[in-house]
């Protein structure tokens, strides 16, 4: 009888113990699943943050320097997953706190310094890593179309440490975005005239277009053009010599053949640009400013200024950046008014299928100046957000 009670007691204890073990593993498994979902979600958000970081940074980067890395040499594109910060296999096991890249190609850098040498750490132990690479339509080490890929890899180390569970993997999310950094208004000279005819008034003898080693004025024609003749006929013999003869270039072929500029010959591009422009303007000083009805400006200004109709830069006004005068009206630089950067002028009718050019109108007074400054133009262009051409999540099965 005592033996029966003992066996009963042992069975009961075994049953209770086995139930406890099963329950323990079930709870651990659910906990692991919940944690994994949470860290997956965290890494997803972190990877998206990496893309946003890249989007903000991209306008300030020199793409070809970026592709070669700070050492100036290209590591090659033969390795699998060379476009990613690291391979998927490595990312699943790596400790993101101590990992560092072996190749610096495509790592975000500024003034010769890598910006995130060990990724960016967000809340917790998660990090995102970025690598830029050239779009597959071009050679990997040379960018000409200003289209670039960025891959953001987020790694969140697994937080579960349980002796009953085998070692678990990091949560990894890899997102790729395809951006184009807009450079349509990277002007080749202080004054770029896009049209077929113009009315120019040069008052006094001391106005300047200062280009350094570049041409003083670039002319871009859509069809049969009298722009050069109009320009030359408007200059009196006593006026400054520096904008005559070889100082004026016909840049039409440059614009037609360049992937960066050629879409400016499309009426859809212009109508879209003008439609969307109000949503991209910025009221702060130094931002993108749009004046659809023109205006009279004075003082010290900077940024990207886009104006239609009559625009007057009053006496002594100094503008640094990019000035786009689009549409009807006259651009007037009064005495001692100065633009440091570049001026673009066009007067286009983009309502139809074909782009139609109308006469330009420019008036420059004595002692006014347009001084070519590539740095000022670049600063203004950096205000334009990159165009996002694509976005996708990459998985180990689809990554190339």
């Amino acid at each position, binding site marked *: 009888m005592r033996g029966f*009670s003992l066996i*009963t007691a042992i069975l009961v204890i075994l049953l209770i113990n086995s139930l406890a073990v099963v329950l323990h593993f079930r709870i651990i498994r659910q906990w692991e699943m919940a944690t994994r979902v949470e860290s997956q979600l965290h890494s997803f958000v972190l990877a998206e943050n990496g893309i946003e970081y890249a989007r903000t940074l991209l306008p300030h980067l020199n793409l070809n320097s970026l592709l070669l890395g700070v050492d100036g040499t290209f590591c090659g594109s033969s390795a699998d997953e060379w476009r990613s910060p690291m391979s998927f296999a490595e990312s699943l096991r790596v400790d993101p706190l101590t990992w560092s890249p072996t190749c610096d190609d495509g790592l975000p850098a500024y003034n010769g310094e890598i910006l995130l040498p060990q990724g960016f750490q967000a809340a917790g132990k998660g990090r995102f890593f970025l690598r830029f690479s050239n779009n597959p339509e071009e050679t990997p080490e040379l960018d000409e179309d200003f289209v670039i890929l960025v891959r953001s890899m987020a790694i969140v180390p697994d937080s579960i440490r349980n002796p009953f569970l085998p070692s678990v993997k990091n949560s990894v999310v890899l997102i790729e975005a395809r951006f184009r950094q807009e450079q349509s208004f990277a002007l080749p000279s202080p004054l770029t005239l896009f049209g077929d005819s113009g009315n120019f008034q040069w008052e006094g003898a001391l106005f300047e277009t200062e280009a350094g080693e570049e041409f003083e004025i670039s002319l871009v024609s859509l069809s049969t053009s009298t722009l050069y003749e109009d320009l030359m006929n408007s200059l009196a013999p006593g006026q400054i010599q520096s904008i005559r003869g070889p100082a004026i270039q016909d840049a039409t072929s440059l614009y037609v053949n360049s992937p960066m500029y050629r879409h400016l010959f499309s009426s*859809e591009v212009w109508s879209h640009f003008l*439609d969307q422009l109000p949503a991209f303007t910025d009221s702060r000083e130094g931002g993108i400013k749009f004046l659809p009805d023109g205006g009279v400006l004075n003082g010290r200004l900077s940024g990207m200024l886009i104006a239609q109709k009559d625009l007057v830069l009053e006496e002594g006004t100094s503008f640094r950046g990019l000035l786009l005068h689009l549409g009807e009206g006259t651009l007037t630089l009064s005495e001692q008014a100065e633009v440091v950067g570049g001026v673009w002028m066009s007067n286009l009718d983009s309502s139809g299928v074909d782009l139609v050019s109308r006469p330009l109108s420019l008036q420059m007074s004595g002692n006014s100046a347009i001084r070519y400054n590539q740095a000022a133009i670049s600063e203004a262009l950096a205000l334009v957000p990159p165009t996002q*051409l694509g976005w*996708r999540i990459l998985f180990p099965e689809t990554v*190339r």
Partner: protein
Amino acid sequence: MASLLSTLVFLGFFLVVEQFQKGCSDLHLLLDRDSNLWLAPLLLSRWIAPAGNNRWDQPWPGVAVQPELLELNSDIHGKGGFPDSELSSSFEALQLRASRTNLQVKSGQGSFQPVIKNIAGLTFDSEQMPMITIRLEAVTDRPPFFFEGNLLETVEFFVLLRNYRPSLFREAR
């Protein structure tokens, strides 16, 4: 006397174990339901994000929202592994809905297939575009022992379509 006592102990034990098992089973049901509620938003956000982040002027609607159906089109694959401006792969065109207490997904020209069970309702709201409001209702697999009904649980979350707006410069198609 002893055998009667043992029988009573056994009976009592199995009664307790049965109740314990029922409790565990109820707990399991709730955990299953909750894991669906965790998993579904993650899956949905992963499917929606590529469609909602691509350029706005693509020749197909990236995200088409109906009250009980969500259509997602995203160019995420093509020749050489890169997007090719075509929705050629079946997984590039998805439709999501809840039907017969399942979250169902239709891929390309295929038919709706269940992906997550016990999803009683799935509604989409695009009033605050570019943000989609998604309401998800999950139930338990069967009625629990200790509670009444299917213990309907609802979760509401938002997915931001980050780049779902025009760019300043139009993209050539």
